[in-house]
Every structure is written in structure tokens, then in C-alpha cells.
């Protein structure tokens, strides 16, 4: 248990399903980690109730995820918790790479002004989960059941049955949709007998959270072959509460049991931090990493999200950030299917979109880990050659890979997208997430705040009352966000919106409920928008002529 943090204890409570048989719920989420809680909050935000079953009664024990990427922050902003992350966390954009005892280069992950969120906020995972629990409870739509361990599941012709173990004994419930967010060791995955294959890395890493009053700047520092950990690597991040995350590579031969003992850990940290720096050990763990995924994420009415579906090494912070984007992708689809507005096949597009996203995360994390822990003489020679050159030559810096930090995946080949027919020189293509930009308003405001819960047409110019009415019709209306000068418009004071979207009079983006682009047009055209919306809901399957 960290010294700097007291884990909350959430109460186990009996629930009505324990006193009856035949309890049934539209959505049951297995696992109340950052992804399961995020799933519940996103669904609640869309008006959908869910039951969350967690085998524990607290948030993450020890920190694990600390780096929360810009896209995840935008999602947290929608859920109303991002300001708490900003208030408590450490904002950063800059990284430095060291070889032995000297810096070889630095990089800025967000060199451009005019974004609501920085490239990253560092905050211990347990705080994020606390905020998610608070948001879930505040919604009134999430039935959070602590100390409810899922022991097994059975797939029904339509739906799923679960066996749950509690301090009061076992009970069973059924659901229409089961979202498996039960982490890397997923019981749901094992019960279904699904293979979870990929690449396992041999090198061991010591991960320590250390409390100290140190002056290290709020930047990501990465060392190759530092004097304090020769032949290996090291990574330093600042977190909240004067806690620092230190990763020390130990090599393949290290004994994890021995290495996690304080009498081994403290001298290692002492060598890094210097003889005079007072520090306290908050939390220590020894890891090996792997990169792997399920072949498919949807299995009938069971859908996997987060670490139960895919796992990556932490270089690049793609695990938790990727998992949150899973539920960002799934929430609106599930809400539309449950309401009857979209066909059940819309859930298949979760596989079509999130599997390439997982592959992108796995590819990047695998390459980073291979670079950091070269496994043969040739890979070490190339690695060291790139580092040596990078010290004096800018051209070699892109070859150095200390982690390719989490970026949102653009769903380039999505069946939900309408392909561009018009030419654009800038702006997010169909499948890509929106790009935020400042909006002129008292106190400042941001474009993403003007996107609706459902579909939004982002229009440059003006829209007639008749067209407004047509977009508002039907069970799945399209909300409007007009960039212009008229009343109710979003004012593009800095000109950044027009620049980032190649926006001219008539330019229209159809934005999905997850703030990814479904389609874009040079001319505002209601019929084209409605057709693109239907395609984005899985209601139009054939390609557009």
C-alpha cells in the first residue's frame, strides 16, 4: 500500500438479485478498473444503466497507469472528470532522451498552441479510478457492486448468464450484453476458452513509485545505458503528491523475488538519485511485459474491452489510454443498439475499428520494447549506432525509440465512414478524431465542448431553418454546431478552427457520438448528411456510388 495514498474502501452491499432468481439487466460490466468504470460512465452519460461487478472493494492497489494522453483527457472531459485530473495531476509535453551521462535530444509532443489539453497529464491510476467511481455514482445509473466476483459465465442463445460470488454467498444473473473489463487475467476470457497470444519479452523491469521533494522538471526523462544502471535503461516521471515513477531495466536474468526487496531496490534508487536525496519507497513491483490480443473482441453478446482484450508493454502509455478509447468506441454503439435505433450488427464495427487500433498500439509498443531491450547482437549494434548518431545528428533522432507515446487511432478503413468525395488540404479525415481548437467566449471555450452526445454536424457558414428542422427529425437527430458570426454560432476568433478543418463556407463535418469524423463535404447537403449518419449507424452497408 503506498505511503502517500490511502485506498478508499467501498462498501459491499446486498442487492436485490441475491434474494430472487431470474435477475436480468441490459448491460453487465465485469471489472471495475479504469476501463470497466469508464464503460459504465460513458453509458450513463448516454442514459444507459449498467451493473458493474468488481471482485475487490477499492481502486487500483499501487499505481500502474500514470500517463493519461490528450485523447483520453478529451474523453474524461466529456465525462466531467478531466478538470479533477488537471487539478491534481502533472501536465507535460516535453521529453528528454539521455545516453550515458548526457542528453542527446529533447522532443515536444504538442508544439502547437490552442489545445484544451496537454499531450499528457500524469496521475496515479488510483486517483483516476476514484474520480470514475464518483462520476458513476453521481450519474444514478450505475449499480456498483463491490466484492462481487464473477466465477463463471454461460452464453445463452441471446444474452449471457453469470455466476457471482460474494461475502454472502453465490448468486446468478443474466444480461443482454456482457462487457468484459476484467483485466489481463480475464476470467471471462478463460471461461470462453479464448486464446490470448502474442509476444512476451524476457527483460525484467523494476517499477518503483518514490516519494521525494525533488526538483526534476515535469518532463519525461529516458536514459539509455545510464551510469546508475549500466547497460540497461531508466525512465523517470513526476506524478502527484511528490511521487515519482522510476522504471529501471534489470535484464533477463534478474530474479524478481530478490529484486523487489527494499534492500535491493534502495541502493539502485540511491545510485540514480544521489547520496543526499531523501526519499520514501511508495510501491515497488517487478514486471515482464507482453504484447498480445484476442483474435476477436466480440463473441456474441460478450464484448471485451481494455486489458482483457489486448495488452501492451507500458512504453508509450498505450494500455490504459487504448482501453479508454475502446469504451469510447463501444458506448454509443451499445446505446443505439439497446434503444433499437441501430441494428445489432453495429457492434461488429467495434471489432472492425478497435482491432486495428489495438494492432497499432501493439506494433508501437513492441518496437519500443525491442529497441529498449535488444535481444541479439545485431539489434544491439543498430540500437547503439542510432543512439550514438543521434547525439550529434538530428537525422538519426527519429530512429531512436524510447516509446512512441499514445495517439488516438484513426479508423481509416471503417465500414462506418463515408469516403471523401471532395478535396481537403487539412482536417481530420473520415474515421479520425476531431481536432480541438479554441472558441471565442467569455473565459475561453473549446470546440469539443460544442459536440452533442449524439451526432453533430460541424458546419462552416450558415444553415437555413428548414434544413435545421430536417436534421432534428427522427429518433437519431443530428445536432448542429455552426462556425460563423450569427447568433448561436461558434466564433472562430483565432482562425484556428478554419485552419485545422480546412473550413470554408459550406464545409460540413459529420461527427459521431465519439467525436470521430463519419463524413465530410464541401457543400452543406442534408441528404448526404442523413445517409452518412445511417452508414455510421450500420444501417447502410453497401459502398456509396
Amino acid at each position, binding site marked *: 500500500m503506498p505511503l502517500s495514498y490511502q485506498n478508499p474502501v467501498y462498501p459491499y452491499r446486498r442487492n436485490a438479485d441475491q434474494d430472487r432468481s431470474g435477475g436480468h439487466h441490459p448491460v453487465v460490466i465485469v471489472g471495475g478498473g479504469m476501463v470497466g468504470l469508464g464503460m459504465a460512465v460513458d453509458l450513463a452519460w448516454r442514459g444507459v444503466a449498467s451493473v458493474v461487478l468488481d471482485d475487490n472493494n477499492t481502486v487500483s492497489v499501487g499505481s500502474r497507469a500514470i500517463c493519461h494522453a490528450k485523447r483520453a483527457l478529451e474523453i474524461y472531459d466529456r465525462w466531467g472528470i478531466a478538470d479533477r485530473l488537471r487539478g491534481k495531476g502533472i501536465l507535460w509535453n516535453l521529453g528528454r532522451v539521455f545516453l550515458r551521462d548526457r542528453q542527446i535530444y529533447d522532443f515536444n509532443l504538442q508544439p502547437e498552441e490552442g489545445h484544451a489539453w496537454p499531450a499528457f497529464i500524469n496521475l496515479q491510476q488510483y486517483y483516476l479510478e476514484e474520480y470514475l467511481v464518483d462520476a458513476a455514482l453521481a450519474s444514478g445509473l450505475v449499480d456498483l457492486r463491490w466484492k462481487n466476483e464473477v466465477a463463471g459465465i454461460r452464453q445463452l442463445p441471446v444474452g449471457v448468464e453469470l455466476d457471482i460470488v460474494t461475502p454472502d454467498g453465490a448468486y446468478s444473473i443474466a444480461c443482454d450484453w456482457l462487457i468484459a473489463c476484467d483485466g489481463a487475467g480475464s476470467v471471462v476470457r478463460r471461461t470462453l476458452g479464448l486464446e490470448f497470444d502474442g509476444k512476451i519479452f524476457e527483460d525484467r523491469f523494476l517499477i518503483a513509485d518514490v516519494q521525494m521533494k525533488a526538483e526534476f522538471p515535469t518532463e519525461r526523462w529516458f536514459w539509455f545505458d545510464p551510469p546508475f544502471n549500466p547497460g540497461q535503461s531508466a525512465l523517470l516521471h513526476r506524478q502527484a503528491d511528490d511521487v515519482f515513477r522510476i522504471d529501471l531495466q534489470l535484464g533477463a536474468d534478474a530474479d524478481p523475488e530478490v529484486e523487489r526487496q527494499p534492500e535491493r531496490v534502495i541502493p539502485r534508487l540511491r545510485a540514480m538519485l544521489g547520496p543526499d536525496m531523501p526519499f520514501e519507497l511508495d510501491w515497488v513491483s517487478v514486471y515482464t511485459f507482453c504484447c498480445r490480443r484476442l483474435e476477436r473482441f466480440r463473441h456474441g453478446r460478450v464484448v471485451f474491452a481494455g486489458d482483457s482484450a489486448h495488452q501492451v508493454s507500458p512504453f508509450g502509455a498505450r494500455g490504459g489510454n487504448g482501453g479508454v478509447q475502446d469504451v469510447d468506441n463501444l458506448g454509443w454503439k451499445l446505446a443505439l443498439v439497446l434503444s433499437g435505433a441501430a441494428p445489432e450488427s453495429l457492434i461488429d464495427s467495434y471489432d472492425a475499428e478497435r482491432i486495428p487500433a489495438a494492432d497499432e498500439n501493439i506494433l508501437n509498443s513492441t518496437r519500443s520494447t525491442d529497441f529498449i531491450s535488444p535481444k541479439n*547482437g545485431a539489434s544491439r*549494434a543498430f540500437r547503439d*549506432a*542510432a543512439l*550514438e*548518431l543521434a547525439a550529434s545528428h538530428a*537525422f538519426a533522432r527519429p*530512429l531512436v525509440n524510447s516509446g512512441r507515446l499514445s495517439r488516438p487511432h484513426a479508423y481509416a478503413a471503417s465500414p462506418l465512414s463515408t469516403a471523401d468525395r471532395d478535396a481537403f488540404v487539412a482536417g481530420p479525415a473520415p474515421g479520425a478524431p476531431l481536432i480541438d481548437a479554441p472558441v471565442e467566449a467569455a473565459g475561453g471555450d473549446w470546440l469539443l465542448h460544442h459536440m452533442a452526445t449524439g451526432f453533430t454536424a460541424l458546419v462552416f457558414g450558415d444553415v437555413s431553418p428548414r434544413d435545421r428542422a430536417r436534421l432534428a427529425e427522427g429518433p437519431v437527430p443530428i445536432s448542429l454546431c455552426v462556425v460563423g458570426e450569427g447568433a448561436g454560432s461558434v466564433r472562430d476568433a483565432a482562425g484556428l478552427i478554419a485552419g485545422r478543418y480546412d473550413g470554408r463556407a459550406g464545409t460540413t463535418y459529420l461527427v459521431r457520438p465519439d467525436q470521430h469524423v463519419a463524413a465530410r463535404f464541401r457543400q452543406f447537403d442534408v441528404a448526404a448528411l442523413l445517409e452518412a449518419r445511417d452508414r455510421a449507424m450500420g444501417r447502410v452497408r453497401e459502398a456509396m456510388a
Partner: protein
Amino acid sequence: MNRLLTEPRLARADDLFEALVEAHRELDEAASDRLHARLVFVLANHIGDEAVVLEALAVARAAALE
């Protein structure tokens, strides 16, 4: 598209050969491997086209004798 040139182009091949060998004379195996690798990166950047470099790699691999 650029393509890899494989017709003879070096006028002073003996000089180049000697300079390459000479550069490795004092080096142990690991240092020698790193020098090769640095040279590859410098040349690849000069070429500036990954496809041409990969073509060169294929030519080099294929030329190995058992």
C-alpha cells in the same frame, strides 16, 4: 519513383575498399558492428527513400554465398 542503381558506378573502388577496412582496424567486434550500423544509417538517410534502402538490403542479402 527512385530505384536502386546496381550498375558499376565507383571510379576508385580500391581506395574505398581500403578506407572501409582501415576504419575497422583497431576496433573489436562490437565496435566494428556499431560502425557498420552507423554507416548504414548515414547512407540510408542520404538516399532518403526507405524503398530504395530496402531494395539494397534485398540485393545484399541475396548475394550471400552458403
